[in-house]
């Protein structure tokens, strides 16, 4: 096969990024055209790859020598599919950005960095060793920083600070993990990792590198406790960038976690437990934060965090279930795909709202969406999918994940292992699913159903142009197709993806709409309805003076991991302690010399002299010495210097004398 195709979706967008910035100097339209062309070309190349892979081909390519170790790429089912999704998302968001950014400044900068990020992200997804993945991961982290701070508002700059700090820290910790993994396994190649790790009789030495690499990828995925950047950065970025950050960049983090789980720690229960715990906390915390939020994009961002938690729960179950982990593998992969597409739709809808209202506050947006059927339907499709309502796409993947948990509980019960914890995980899973339904209802009701505070003024005008509408509608209408024909679409996708996670077909065909599965969804939705009616509508809404019920943010301001712990420690405590030690060390030599001058080597007191005085050996008799110069010439340094020079001369002389004899 034509392996060079692998390079096209990676380097073509990067090349066109430069072309876009050059074109931007001439005309904005040309630049937008180049950017869209890059998205389309990348998608075409990825679709070619996916077509080839689906037909049984495999693409591999190694470029030796680049960056020392050389890069290596491979497209198998999962990677080709994800590259394809990434390119699709770029294509859609770039089309949407034309209108969204229409009146903003620095548009060339946005396109330049977003296209670089596109190439780098696809590079991560197509990589075939940790080295290549790391190279592109770092490029992606830095180029996406500019997408976060695009608007240059104080909030954006502060969120950007957090983002880049987490990215740099995550990158460095991951690098340490890679050093250790390479030293202990002797390879970073994805194909060789499984065998190399399996050959180790004891996996204990792998846990440290594994944890460090997990730190790096987890930081990007938004995993607790490194999620801090996510709820801050996603809302402040322009909407198309938020869609990318949330839909696909987090998945680059998950990609790394999948490699660790499916290759290095294949069927490792201890590893599975750790991921499961972190995933559960992320899932619940994100959902709770989303319920409290009164900001449209912040809710969606917290929701992203929660959904990543769902995915990580699936990853954890892969480790726990051992060889029979097909359901967990399918659930994980499909939920990733779902979440990417769902967040694309939802964030672009939020973008459509923002470019008209210039606000994201639910109280100000109230009822804005009434009479905008296209937007309402698209948003609703996204919300239904995310909430896991049957016939939506999210239902399929959440059912698989739920079944995986239930299956493990049954397995564990058979062997007599304690299952209480896993029952708790199952209930938290359903509870978070309920919260998802609750906060999506909150958003939908607030924007599309409730009556506006003030009736809309002015003549009715078009709120978005057709390319933007298309960018929202295409992914939105793909979702029900996926949900309605699970076997034809999602089952096929899952079969493509399972090889990457060392999975296999499930033992028996999945009955998507069986009674037990529907029951899980029903419990979840019931919890959601209860939370919405009994908590959101009562506790989180207060009547103000005008008699209008307003959404209030009840989340305590101080309860923020970043402001409470991370920033004080990193900005104050560590620099203070570090600098104190370093200042002492820095001055050690000078202080020692000074101490010597005060004790053993006291200089002759320098008496103030007239300019006329001339002492032999004084080289600067006519210059009145400054205090500084007095200190230099009276210092032990100066004496030592003279001594050193004399010493050198004497020794040189001695050598010559001794050796000429």
């Amino acid at each position, binding site marked *: 096969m034509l392996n060079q195709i692998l390079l096209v979706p990676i380097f073509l967008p990067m090349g066109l990024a430069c072309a876009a910035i050059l074109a931007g100097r001439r005309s904005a339209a040309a630049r937008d055209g180049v950017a869209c062309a890059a998205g389309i070309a990348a998608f075409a190349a990825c679709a070619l790859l996916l077509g080839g892979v689906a037909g049984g081909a495999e693409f591999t390519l190694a470029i030796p020598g680049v960056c020392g170790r050389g890069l290596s790429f491979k497209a198998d089912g999962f990677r080709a599919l994800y590259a394809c999704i990434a390119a699709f998302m770029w294509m859609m968001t770039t089309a949407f950005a034309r209108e969204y950014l229409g009146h903003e400044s620095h548009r060339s900068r946005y396109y330049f960095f977003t296209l670089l990020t596109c190439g780098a992200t696809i590079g991560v997804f197509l990589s075939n060793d940790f080295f290549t993945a790391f190279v592109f991961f770092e490029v992606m982290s830095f180029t996406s920083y500019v997408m976060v701070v695009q608007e240059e508002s104080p909030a954006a700059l502060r969120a950007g600070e957090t983002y880049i700090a987490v990215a740099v820290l995550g990158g460095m910790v991951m690098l340490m993990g890679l050093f250790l993994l390479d030293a202990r396994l002797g390879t970073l190649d994805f194909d060789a990792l499984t065998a190399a790790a399996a050959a180790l009789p004891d996996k204990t030495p792998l846990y440290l590198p594994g944890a460090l690499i997990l730190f790096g990828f987890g930081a990007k995925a938004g995993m607790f406790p490194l999620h801090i950047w996510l709820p801050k950065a996603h809302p402040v970025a322009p909407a198309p960038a938020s869609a990318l950050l949330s839909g696909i960049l987090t998945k680059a983090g998950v990609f790394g976690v999948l490699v660790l789980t499916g290759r290095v720690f294949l069927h490792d229960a201890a590893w599975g437990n750790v991921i499961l715990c972190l995933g559960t906390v992320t899932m619940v915390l994100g959902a709770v934060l989303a319920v409290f939020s009164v900001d449209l994009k912040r809710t969606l961002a917290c929701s992203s965090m929660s959904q990543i938690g769902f995915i990580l729960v699936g990853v954890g179950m892969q480790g726990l279930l051992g060889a029979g982990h097909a359901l967990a593998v399918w659930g994980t992969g499909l939920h990733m795909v779902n979440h990417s597409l769902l967040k694309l739709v939802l964030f672009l809808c939020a973008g459509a709202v923002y470019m008209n209202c210039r606000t994201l506050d639910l109280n100000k947006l109230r009822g804005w969406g009434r009479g905008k059927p296209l937007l309402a339907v698209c948003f609703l499709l996204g919300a239904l999918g995310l909430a896991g309502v049957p016939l939506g796409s999210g239902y399929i993947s959440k059912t698989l994940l739920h079944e995986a948990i239930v299956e493990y509980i049954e397995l564990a019960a058979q062997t007599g292992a304690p299952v209480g914890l896993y029952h708790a995980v199952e209930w938290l899973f359903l509870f978070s699913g309920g919260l998802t339904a609750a906060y999506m209802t909150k958003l939908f009701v607030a924007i599309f159903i409730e009556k506006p505070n003030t009736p809309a003024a002015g003549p009715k005008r078009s709120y978005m142009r057709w390319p933007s509408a298309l960018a929202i509608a295409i992914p939105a209408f793909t979702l029900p197709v996926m949900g309605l024909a699970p076997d034809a679409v999602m089952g096929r996708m899952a079969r493509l993806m399972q090889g990457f996670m060392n999975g296999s077909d499930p033992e028996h065909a999945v009955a998507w709409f069986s009674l037990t599965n529907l029951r899980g969804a029903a419990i979840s939705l019931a919890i959601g309805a209860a939370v919405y009616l009994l908590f959101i509508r009562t506790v989180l809404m207060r009547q103000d003076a005008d008699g209008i019920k307003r959404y209030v943010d009840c989340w305590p301001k101080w309860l923020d991991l970043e402001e409470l712990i991370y920033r004080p420690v990193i900005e104050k405590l560590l*620099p203070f302690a570090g600098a104190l030690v*370093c200042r002492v060390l820095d001055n050690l030599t000078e202080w020692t010399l000074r101490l010597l001058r005060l004790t053993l080597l006291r200089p002759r007191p320098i008496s103030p002299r007239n300019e006329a005085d001339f002492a032999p050996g004084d080289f600067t008799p006519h210059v009145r010495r400054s205090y500084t110069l007095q200190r230099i010439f009276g210092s032990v340094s100066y004496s030592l210097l003279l001594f050193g020079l004399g010493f050198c001369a004497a020794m040189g002389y001695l050598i010559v004398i001794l050796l000429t004899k």
Partner: protein
Amino acid sequence: MGYLLLLPILFPFAAASALALPALKTAQNRRRFVVAALALEFGFAILCACTETGTLPVLPLGGELCVTFALDGLGRIFSLLVVCMWLLSGLFAQEYMAGEEHLGRYYAFLFLSEGALMALCCAANYLTMYLGFELMTLFSLPLALHTQSDAARRGGCKYLFYSVFGACLGLLGFYTVHAYGSSTAFTPGGTLDPARLAGHEGFVAAAAFLAVLGFGAKAGLFPLHAWLPAAHPEAPAGASALLSGVITKAGVLCVIRVIYYQFGAAFLRGTWVQYAWLALALVTVFLGSMLACKEKAFKKRLAYSTVSQVAYIFFGLTLLQPIALTGAVLHVVVHSAIKNGLFFTAGAVILKTGRTDVRALRGVGKAMPFTMGCFTVLSLGLVGIPPLGGFVSKWLLAEGSLKSGVPVFGWLGPVVLLVSALLTAGYLFSITITAFLPGKDFDAADAPHREPGPFITVPLAVLTALTVLTGLCPGLLTGPVAALAAALC
């Protein structure tokens, strides 16, 4: 062909003398002459590097002592680095120093120190290297003193004291090698004579320790680093770049010669000496980065950064492991290119806006997008972000460290390197971010376009390209160096 080697060593001295000619007193003529001479010197160095010149004894001093020149693989790398950076700094000075006084003196000492460095690179034995080292100190001192301010004088005195003190320690190493070794000529694997050595291992090891510490003073190694942040920032930017980017590397070259060509890696491996060096290197790595974070003066921040980065190299050298050694030599080139570039940008900012404090750089990126763009790429390279040069050298250093089997330092080293990389990110990215993202309330009218001319932008572009190139295809350099390193360890 042997005498060819004298060409790049003596030509700078001739050029320095020629600057005294009355015809070269006008700015126009001097500019042409300086650029032409530096380019010519660049050509001579390439010519020498491409030909097998052999060993050239020049000045017998009696006995077996003789000033001797030879150009081996390591010398080739360092000499090319020197002439390349000198040429770029000379070009940079054409705009940066234009209209200043005492230019003749500045260029003369620029040439003289280049000659001394070439002698150091071509040295074939310890004595020649020592002479080159002392000459380099003396000839580069006037560059540090050029502005004649009080701070410069204080820094210059510190520079002189630390360097000469270091050289004295180096001399101790020379006596030791002469007494306990079979020869003082540089021989891969060392020249210690087992028969003479027997029973004196402790003393010889201590002498090796002190000698390396002494030459390390030039490279800013703790505890003899204090001169560096005092002297480097006081020089004109072009000279700061050379002091930080290249002359510190002369210290590194001397250390490589002493460790690998005189005492021998085998003799030192696993001794307290190696562990002490490693500990000092790691302390320096952390210290430099931490203080750079706290430093508010732009050039001084870069000087502290040099302290830290050169200690990376020192760490790689003292691991006594071929991969780490390869990484260290690569880092010599990478750091040289990056630090020169960073000082050039600092100089350009000072020249065009007069701002020397990093807190005053808000919005500078809008006024000087190209300069600060290069600054950004160079700082990414210094932090070690792929696919730039610093990443590859850091990877090799860490890989070598973990493979070296040295207890504790084997894993502690990479940890400290990465912590330092984090701090590096802290002190460099903050500059880039405030320069390019001043925030919405920043008035673009405050930042009229003030990009410097081609004498500054071209060297900057070259250095930035070099940073990218060393990242994308490090094999051009690491290939030959790895072969060399395998023979040395």
